[in-house]
């Protein structure tokens, strides 16, 4: 495991040549382990009800936005739209509300999603092992849960109230999901909340621990940067493009087989170049509002964050091909998840 001091030295090294070397090493490893393939997925927001107050999030409980959750019929409408674009990997998201989007609601969403997509992941409120087991049996293959920051003090400052304020419960979520049988777990830190080197080091330790104890799970990581929401900036310490690139490259070198996601939060130029470095999964055709694809008119939407890359799925597929990548839409086939 790389030490915190070494991570700091790399992130603070101003020499462009060291960055280039890091990128070359990361790129070589990515091509060796993933070839020139990029997996595509799309987010689908089911609900923006939230009972947690996180100072940086557009969906937080104190924010006076219109609250929606999709009905079964609206889910079908949204899912059918995404499926027609060619999407097979879907990430279903909600705010963190145990009341508005309880387990039964999520199970229903997964059951409907199974008729449209081959791979279903959830980014929702943390749950217990038993609940993950039920979701797995209802067709959920992946769970995305970011610790946001591993800095306890900072965590407490930005997660003011609600279940999300419980640091330790959140920290144990990947383990509970793994015990529940989930195949794919995505971890992450929200860059901008705390010291990036310290968060990165803690994330590596967490991932390393998970790999050691739950080797059968496929892991991926994400490095979202704090974004403005309708113009307001929440970043505590800005993470610039050079640092983000170094973080992606260093992660690839430390974890050659782990997937690295990049979302539409990033602008097209950075996304396009990052493809060469270590990114293996990107979102396409993203909309971060509830019902944003078909149900809600664009001007009425309150997005969770502002997106920077507005290209359609087809645009992304064509771009990948132009850049000599094979866009992978189908990377799993539902085999009827069973607990053995």
């Amino acid at each position, binding site marked *: 495991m790389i030490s915190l001091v070494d991570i700091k030295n790399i992130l603070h090294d101003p020499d462009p040549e060291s960055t280039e070397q890091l990128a070359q090493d990361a790129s070589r490893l990515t091509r060796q382990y993933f070839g020139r393939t990029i997996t595509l997925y799309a987010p689908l927001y089911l609900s923006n009800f939230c009972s947690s107050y996180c100072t940086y999030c557009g969906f937080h409980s104190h924010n006076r936005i219109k609250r929606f959750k999709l009905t079964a019929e609206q889910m079908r409408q949204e899912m059918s739209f995404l499926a027609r674009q060619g999407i097979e990997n879907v990430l279903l998201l909600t705010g963190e509300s145990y009341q508005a989007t309880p387990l039964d609601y999520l199970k229903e969403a997964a059951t409907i999603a199974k008729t449209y997509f081959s791979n279903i992941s959830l980014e929702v409120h943390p749950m217990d092992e038993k609940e993950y087991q039920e979701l797995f049996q209802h067709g959920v293959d992946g769970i995305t849960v970011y610790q946001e920051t591993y800095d306890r003090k900072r965590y407490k400052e930005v997660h003011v109230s609600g279940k999300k304020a419980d640091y330790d419960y959140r920290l144990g979520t990947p383990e509970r999901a793994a015990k529940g049988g989930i195949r794919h777990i995505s971890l992450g830190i929200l860059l901008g909340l705390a010291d990036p080197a310290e968060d990165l080091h803690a994330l590596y330790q967490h991932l390393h621990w998970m790999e050691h104890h739950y080797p059968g799970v*496929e892991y991926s990581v994400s490095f979202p940067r704090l974004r403005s929401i309708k113009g307001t900036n929440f970043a505590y310490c800005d993470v610039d493009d050079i640092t983000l690139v170094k973080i992606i490259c260093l992660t690839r070198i430390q974890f050659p087989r782990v997937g690295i996601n990049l979302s539409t939060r990033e602008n097209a130029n950075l996304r396009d170049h990052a493809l060469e470095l270590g990114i293996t999964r990107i979102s396409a055709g993203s909309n971060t509002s509830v019902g944003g694809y078909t149900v809600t008119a664009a001007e009425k939407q309150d997005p969770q964050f502002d997106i920077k890359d507005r290209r359609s799925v087809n645009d992304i597929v064509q771009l990948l091909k132009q850049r000599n990548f094979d866009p992978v839409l189908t990377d799993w086939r539902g085999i009827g998840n069973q607990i053995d």
Partner: protein
Amino acid sequence: MDTPLEIAGKMFTSRFLLGTGKFKNKTDLAQSIEASKTEIVTVALRRIDLERHDENILEYIPKNVTLLVNTSGARNAKEAVRIARLAKEAGYGNWIKIEVINDSKYLLPDNQETVKATEILAAEGFVVLPYMYPDLYAARALVQAGAATVMPLGSLIGSNRGLRIKEFIQILINEIDLPIVVDAGLGAPSHAAEAMEMGADAVLVNTAVATSGNPALIAQAFAMAVEAGRLAYLSKLPSPKDNADASSPLTGFLYDQSR
């Protein structure tokens, strides 16, 4: 003259099997199949979606090539069995390469679960080609379970490191009465030649071809290396010795009775 490679009663001239992952486009894959004259190509069921997408990988695999669907993504025997059955129901034939991997870091196959899956699927009439870690007992169990070949890894999948566990593969070649197909880790044609010289019946390569600058060219090089290695094996290649064995001994005169 060489005899054909026989797997489950089917004859193959080529002893080079090709994997289809990691190619940057389907044209490279098609050209690699053509250039190498491979007759068996493996595809992960998880990457096939005939139902919904226009550009399907199977369109790039000629009809005369045997399709070997693999169970990539299976974490245990039951999942491998379910994937195999889905593949058969979807019309992709009954040749199945079992991959049971429950370790995302090293991607090492789980021999015990592989044996279980082989037993179930062979009994259902599948032609089962199991990917395994070269362990003699596991290989014998696979024979008992009804496998059509045994496919030991040369080194970690995708590592390009060659035959890191050569001695144990040699034991399988010596002791197992099924075709031995060395799979995983072969990073250069010389590695493939080495496996064939040892007496392996065939090799399977994917990463080294798919991630090369010119996949078709290296696929052809691999196929040639496989042929060269096979001919060397058939020629009864003199085995390496630990001590010097001079063709003109220097000390023979000391023991010469006729002097």
